[in-house]
C-alpha cells in the first residue's frame, strides 16, 4: 500500500512555540492543521517535509469571536484551525455568513470535513492532474515543474506552473472582502483575502513559509448578500472544477456594488472585475446578468488539468455565473 514516509511530528501549544519550531526546522519543516491535504500529498511524495508542526493544539487558533462584543465592530473573527464541520454548526456563522457555511459544507466529504480546517482549505495546495499523482506516475511523465521536474505539462512552453486553485472557501473569502491575519517570526500583518493568493501554481500564496494564517476576519453582515455555486462531477468527494462566488451590496433593489470571484479556473481565486462593474447600478435584470456572465466567460481560462473537458468548463462559467446571480436576485425579490 501507499505509505507515509517517516517524519518528525511536533505539537506546539502556543503560536510562539510553533513559530520557533519552524525557525529551527528551516525549509524541512511545514505547518499542518487537519492534514487532509498534506498527508496524501506526502504519501505521493509531492511534499517531503522532514518535520511536521501541528497547529491543532494551539487554543488561539480555535477561537471564534464575533458579532457585537464591542471588540470586533460587528465583524466576526474566526481561528484558522476550526474544522470545516465545526464551522458549519457555529450559530453566528449560520446566521451571519450562510455563504461561508455553504461553501464549507461543499468541501469533499463529511469525514474529511471532520478533520480538514478552514485555514487548511484556504491554503490548499493547488491541484493538477499531472501533479496529484504518485511518485512513480510522475516519474513516468518525467515529472513536472511543481515537483522534481522542469516543465509544465499543461502548457509545455509556459515558464510557470498552471496548477489550479481548488479551494471552495477561498473564492468566498475573496468575494466577501475578508481579511487574514498572518503571524510570523518578525511580527504579524493583516492582508485582504485576495492578496493572500498569487496566480502561480507553485508560489500560489503570498504567505511566507514561516508565517501562520492565524485567523480570518469577516466583514459585518449588513446589506450584502452572497452565494457560491460549485461545479463538479459528483455530489461529494470532488474538488471544484469551477466555483462561482457572487456578492452584491444592495441599495434597496439596486445593485450598489458587486463582485464575482471564480475558483477552479486559475492558480488563485480570480476576481472578474468587469463582471462586478456591469452589474453595478442595475436591478440584476436578465440583461445585466447575461452581461456579467459574458464578462466572466471571456477571461476564464480553464486548462486541461482537472476533471472534465476544458472547453465545456469554460462554457459552464457563463451558466454558473448566471445561476448564482439569479439566485441572489430571487432572494432579494422574493417575499420574505
Amino acid at each position, binding site marked *: 500500500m*501507499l*505509505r507515509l514516509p517517516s517524519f518528525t511530528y511536533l505539537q506546539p501549544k502556543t503560536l510562539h512555540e510553533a513559530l520557533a519550531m519552524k525557525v529551527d526546522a528551516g525549509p524541512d519543516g511545514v505547518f499542518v492543521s487537519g492534514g487532509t491535504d498534506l498527508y496524501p500529498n506526502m504519501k505521493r511524495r509531492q511534499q517531503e517535509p522532514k518535520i511536521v508542526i501541528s497547529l491543532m493544539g494551539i487554543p488561539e487558533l480555535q477561537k471564534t469571536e464575533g458579532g457585537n462584543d464591542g471588540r470586533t465592530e460587528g465583524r466576526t473573527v474566526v481561528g484558522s484551525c476550526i474544522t470545516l464541520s465545526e464551522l458549519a454548526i457555529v450559530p453566528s456563522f449560520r446566521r451571519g455568513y450562510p455563504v461561508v457555511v455553504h461553501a464549507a459544507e461543499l468541501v469533499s466529504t463529511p469525514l474529511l470535513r471532520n478533520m480538514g480546517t478552514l485555514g487548511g482549505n484556504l491554503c490548499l495546495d493547488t491541484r493538477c*492532474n499531472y501533479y496529484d*499523482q504518485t511518485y512513480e506516475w510522475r516519474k*513516468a511523465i518525467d515529472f513536472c515543474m511543481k515537483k522534481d521536474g522542469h516543465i509544465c505539462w499543461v502548457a509545455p512552453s509556459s515558464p510557470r506552473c498552471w496548477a489550479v486553485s481548488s479551494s471552495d472557501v477561498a473564492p468566498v473569502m475573496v468575494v466577501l472582502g475578508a481579511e487574514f491575519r498572518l503571524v510570523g517570526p518578525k511580527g504579524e500583518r493583516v492582508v485582504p483575502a485576495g492578496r493572500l493568493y498569487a496566480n502561480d501554481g507553485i508560489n500560489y500564496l503570498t504567505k511566507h513559509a514561516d508565517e501562520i494564517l492565524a485567523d480570518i476576519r469577516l466583514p459585518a453582515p449588513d446589506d450584502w448578500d452572497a452565494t457560491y455555486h460549485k461545479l463538479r462531477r459528483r455530489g461529494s468527494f470532488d474538488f471544484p472544477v469551477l466555483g462561482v462566488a457572487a456578492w452584491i451590496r444592495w441599495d434597496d433593489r439596486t445593485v450598489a456594488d458587486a463582485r464575482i470571484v471564480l475558483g477552479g479556473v486559475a492558480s488563485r481565486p480570480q476576481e472578474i472585475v468587469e463582471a462586478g462593474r456591469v452589474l453595478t447600478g442595475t436591478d440584476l435584470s436578465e440583461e445585466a446578468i447575461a452581461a456579467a456572465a459574458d464578462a466572466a466567460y471571456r477571461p476564464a481560462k480553464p486548462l486541461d488539468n482537472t*476533471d472534465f*473537458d476544458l472547453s465545456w468548463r469554460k462554457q459552464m462559467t457563463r*451558466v454558473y455565473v448566471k445561476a448564482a446571480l439569479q439566485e441572489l436576485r430571487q432572494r432579494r425579490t422574493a417575499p420574505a
Partner: protein
Amino acid sequence: MGTRKKAAVKETAAVGRPGTPFRVVGNALRKVDATAKVTGVTKFADDLFLPRMLYAKLLRSPHPHARITAIDTSRALTLPGVKAVLTGHDLPIPFGILPVSQDEHALALDKVRFVGDPVAAVAAASEEVATAALDLIAVTYELERPITDAEDAVAHPEPRIHDYGDLGNLHKLVNLEFGDVEQGFAEADLVRDDLLFFEGSTHLPMEQHAAVGDWSPPPDGKLTLWSSTQTPHYVHRALAKVLELPPAKVRVIATPNGGGFGGKSDPFSHELVVAKLAMLTGRPVKITLTREEVFYCHRGRHPTLMWVKTGVKKDGAITAMHFKSLLDGGGYGSYGVASTYYTGALQTVTYHVPRYKFQGARAFTNKPPCGPKRGHGTPQPRFALEVHLDKIAEQLGMDPAELRLKQLVPPNSLTANWLRIGSMGLGACIRKVVQGSGWKEQFRNLPHGKGIGLACSSYITGAGLPVYWNAMPHSGVQLKCDRGGGVTVFCGSTEIGQGSDSILAVLVAEVLGLDPFDIAVVTGDTDLTPVDLGSYSSRVTLMTGNACIQAAERAREMIRRHAATQLAVPAERLAFAERRIFDVADPACGLSFAEAVQLAEAAEGTIGTVGSYTPQPSAGKYRGAGVGPSPAYSYSACVALVDVDPATGIVRVPRVWIAHDVGRSINAASVMGQIEGSVYMGLGEALMEEMAYRGNRNVVHKIPSLLEYKSPTTLEMCDVVTYVVEDPDPNGPFGAKECGQGPLLPVPPAVANAVYDAVGVRIDEVPITPEKVFKALRRKEKGEAARYGPDQFPDIPWPEPTRVAPPWEGGDGTAAEGGKGRQKAAALAARKR
C-alpha cells in the same frame, strides 16, 4: 422518493416460503459470512501477518512500449533490510489465463508493454525499505513507438507489441456467419446501421489485490499462497507451471475477496512474485497493491467500437443482423480471445435473429490489459444493440417495448449461432417494468429535459466450457456429516462478496432439513476443497449449487436408509425438516438429524459424500462455438428515468425500474443486492466511468486514483425498483439462474435511450458525459446531426468467414466452410507431438 424495494431480511429460515415446496430456498437470509464481515473479524489477504514476514514491492515500467536492455539491481541489494531482488529472468516461464494467450511474465523478460508493467521486485523487512529499494534499481530501456488505441493498432501493424497474434497488432480476428445475411437484408422493409462506442472502465473493488507466499523448504518443498483471487484453481495451475513445482506441492488459499467483479480472475504477477520471493528467502512474503497498481492490473472492460446493421420487416421482425466490433485489448491477452467472441455471442439470445454475421477484432495496445469485467464482453454489444433497436422502433413508428415483445426468442429453442435457450422470462420482465414505470403514459410524453428509456439484456449462467480444455466437472463438492448434527461442505468456489458461501449453506440446509447456520462452509482452498473453476461467468450458484445438491441428496439417502430401519417406516415416507427426520404420515414419529447421522455412521462409517457438475456439451460444433453456450440464460428488462439539463448537458438518473428473470431466487436478499449492485455499476459506466489515458504523454493512465477515476457515490445512485421474475430453468439448482452480472447490461442503453427521449439527441457512446450531451445539443441547435458518437469503423482485413447454417436451415452446428480451424489445429498439434 424512497420506493426502493427491499425484502425484509428474516433471521431464521424455519418459516418456509408460501406457495413453494421450499423451507429455506427463496427466503431473504442473512449471509453466512455477514456477521464476520460487518464486525471486522473476516481476514482478508492484507490482514494476514506471519512470523518473520517480509514485504514485497514491484518496480513498474515508466514506458508504454520499450525493450529492456539492462537491469542493474546491485545497489538495491546493498540497502539494509533488502532480502531479495527479482527480475524477469528469475521467472522466465510465460503464463496467461487462456492456453492460447500464454503471453505474460511475472516480471518483464525483455520488453515492457504498458506504463505499470512489472519489471522487478524487492522483498524487504518493511514496505518502506522495499519502496526505497525500487529507486535503486537501474533499468535501461530502448523505446519503441507506443500503440495508443485500437484504431492506431489497425493502422500500425509495426512495431508489434507481441510476436504472436492473428495479424500485426491485431491479437484476434473472428468472422462467423450463420445463414446468408445479405439475403436477409434484401428481404427487409427497413435496413439500418449504426456506429457506437463503449469506453473502457475498471472494476474498482474496495479491496486492493493482496497476496502472501509461504514456503516450507525441502524435503517438504511446499508452497502456500494466500491471495485475493476469484480463481484459486487457475492460480494453482499458473504457480505450478511458472515455479516448476508439482501441483501437489502448491496450495492456494483464496481469501475472502473485498470485491472482484472479474478483476481478480487472472493469475497475476504479484502472486507469482511473492511465491518466488518466499522460496528464495525462506520467509513469508506479503504484497498489497496500491490503488494505482490495481488500475494497472486492470483486466477491465474493453473499449469497444461497434457497427451494427439490422434488417427488419414493418412489424419489427428481424430478418438479418451484421455486427462488427473492434476491441482495445491493452498489452496482454488475458481473457481477450473469449472477450472478443463475447462481443458477438449473445445478440441472438433475446430477440429472434434468423441470420446473423459477426466480425470481431481485438487489438494489442500499450495500455493495461483488458479482460473480464462484470458482463464480460457483452455490455458493449448490448448497449449497441439496444440503442440501435430504439432507433429502429422510432423509424418504424413502433413502441420500443412492443417491438421487443413481438420478437422474443422462444424458450427451449436454439439460436442462429447454436446457443441452447432454456427458460426465457424476458417477456415477463418487459411487462413488469413497462407497468411499474408507467411506460405507456410517459414515453415521448414527458416535458423537455425529462426522459424515459427502455432496454433489455441476457447473460450466461456459467460458461459452458472451462478456460482450459478438459472433460472433468466444472465444480465439485464434498460433504461431511458430523455426529453432533452439523454438516461441513467443502467446495473450491470463492467468496467474493457475491454470497457463494451462503448458497452452499442454504442448499445443504434445504436438502437435509437443517438451518443454514448449522452448515460449516470450507471454500477456495486447493488442499482442502475439490476443484471449482472459480467465481467468474456467473457460474457458481448454478454449478456449485447443482454439485452441492447432488452431494446433499446422496447424504440424505444414506441417512434416510438407516433412519427408516430404526423407525420401521418406509424410507420414502421420511422427510427432513427442522433438524429432524420424520414420518410424513405421523410427524411425531422421528429422530433428530444428529441421531440419524449417528445411526448411519455406526452402520457405515464416516458419512461423507461428493457431488459434481459438468454442463452438457454445447450444440454448436464450429470453431468459436465454445464462447456463448451456457446451461441457462438470465434475462433483464430495464426502464431508466433521466433528468437532462439542456443548459449544461448534465444527466441525472433519479430512478431505474429493473426486472430480472433469475429462474429461482435462492436467497431473496442476495438476489436483490446483486441486482441493485449491477444497476449501480451499470449507472457508473453509463454516466462517468472511464479508463482515460494521455495518448500524447507516454500513454500514461490519466487518473489512477479513487478520487479522479469517477464512479458514482451514494448521491448519484438512483432509486431502484426491482422486480424478481422467477421462470425456473431445468438446468439450475431448484431452477436458479444468475443475477450478478446480467442486470448491469440494460442500464447503459436504457439511460442513452432516455436521454434521447428527454432532449432529442443520440449519445451513441458511453459514458454519457455532460460534454457529449452539450455538444450534441449544440449540433442540434445548428441543424446538424443531433448526435454524439463515433463516425467510422476502420477497414479490417477479416479472414474468410466460418459459415455455419442456422438450425432452421438444416445445419448440424458444424461449419460448412472456413471453420476447419479446430481440425487444422488438432492436426498441427498431432504433428508437433
